[in-house]
């Protein structure tokens, strides 16, 4: 019981592992391009939680720095991704990745 009562490194790592799996699950099963991108955000944030948790328990600053950069780049990536998805919607009238298949073997 005592282990459950105080929140330690393991709790953070478990949460981040669950987030990673949920993100991967979303990427692999969903057909909607927007939802796939949401899955990617989950993966990135799982890594962020890891960095912050390790940083807290290591006492080193690099993890916090790293997570700040991950947040910024995730935003940049979302901007580019949405631009591409909007363009796809204009052309294909859909953001369903299974219907976007003009390139094939």
């Amino acid at each position, binding site marked *: 019981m005592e282990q459950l009562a105080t929140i330690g490194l393991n709790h953070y790592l478990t949460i*981040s592992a669950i987030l*990673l799996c949920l*993100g*991967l699950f979303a*990427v692999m099963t969903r057909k909607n*391009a927007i939802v*796939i*991108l949401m*899955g*990617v955000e989950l*993966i*990135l944030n*799982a*890594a962020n939680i*890891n*960095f912050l948790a*390790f940083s*807290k328990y*290591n*006492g*080193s*600053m*690099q*993890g*916090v*720095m*790293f997570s700040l*950069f*991950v947040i910024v*780049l995730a935003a*940049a*990536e979302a901007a*580019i*991704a949405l631009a*591409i*998805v909007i*363009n*796809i919607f204009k*052309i*294909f009238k859909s953001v369903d*990745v299974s219907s*976007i*298949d*003009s*390139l094939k*073997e």
Partner: protein
Amino acid sequence: MFELPSGAEIQSIIAVLKANTGFFIPEIYLSVLFMAVILVDLVTKGRKNNVLSITTLLGLLGSIYFIFQQHALPSGEIFFGMYVIDRYALFFKYFFVVSGIIAVIITMADEQFNREVKSMGEYYALIISMVIGMIMMASSGDLLMIFLSMELVSFSAYILTGYFKRNRRSSEAALKYLVYGAVSSGLMIYGFSLIYGLTAQTNLIKISAALAAHGYDPLIMILATLLILAGFGYKIGAVPFHFWSPDVYEGAPTPITAYLSVASKAAGFALLMRFFYIAVPRAALPVEDVMGIDWVALLIVLSIASMVYGNVVALWQKNVKRLLAYSSIAHAGYLLLGVLLRDALGTQATLFYLTSYFLMNFGAFYVVTLIANKTGSENLEDYRGLGRRMPIAGAALTVFLISLVGLPPTIGFIGKLMIFSALLAKGSLYIWLALIGVLTSVISLYYYMLIPLNMYLRDSEQPEEKSFNPGLIANILMSFLMILTLWFGLFFTPLSDFARYSSAMFGITLQ
């Protein structure tokens, strides 16, 4: 929790940053060029001329001077271990700048841009930003820098892939590239976070020291390695992280396809070698690995899978760009053979092979662009009878393809020879790898030679037999690449000496 730095500490940090700026001149120059090209675009808006491309070309040529100045610098870390200056990085700086120049030249020749887009806008600026990103990839000494530079390259590449906004195939390629790229870089970051958790360091050299000093949990290490390999494997296009590459290579504008297949792949290799050689040196590890699996074993699997898959699937391809995409997967396999040796000979062979791949792949894509300009098609069937109608292009393409197979007297032969002889020098298991490499090269002979077969021995179905002339500049560049491919196939010593000179990485002495 964290202490704030004192005023004196901040002053000393600023002093170090100032002192280190002198080691960063090529990157600063290229960043200025990036902004200058955007400004030039602003001024010449709406006019269809070559001002933008000429500015880019001259600017990139100018950066070679600043890179040349860096030969005098001692190798070392700058910006608090974020960035590394060494001869290995220098090799890749030349490599990326020259590939940027060739990408610009191919773009100037490609008539598809006239049809598809109104203005070249950010296109050239993005090519320069990719050059900067790849240079930083090759010189990063820290996990954070690896992440930032890789994303800089990826973001520019997503936009360039989808540059034909109204073209279905280009947009689709951009979406696929983006989804695979985002997922694999996300996995790589998760792997980085595990490494950071194991060592409390993000600098590659300090990571290696921490791993050697404190040991580690081998299971977590192998998990982290796998996740990081997802990111690197995506950049180099190795099986099983290759799914994006045939579609992206087919859909993207041809100059970008060539650029991605040569420069972006080389940047991935630069990073892969630096990361694994420095951060995870095998000999220094105190703990036994899980069932003997470590990154070398993983790279062996990746390499064999890439060579076999790339070469076998290419046999059925009807589109030449797609065929070259599968061939580039196979070449990632050959390059990995040189990487996994992790010795001086293997590094030298890998660098040499990258150079040879540069010449022959850019050459092949350039000719494909020229042919697509004239025939409007990239299908193998439409290459019939082209050998007589475009004599120089046909001869050049044949030379590039012979080089891609790895037959003498071309540079591709010397490249393969160096990699295989480095494998044989290592002995035991590696001899089998060399054998697989040779056998898969034999398979590749078939599909590469289909193109000259169609060009020379089969007649076109259309009766018209007028000859095409791609223009003087195109002929000169094509012949130049062809002659270099042949020349270095015969007189390869200067190039292999340069590759040996460049295989000196800061932070590790390769035997």
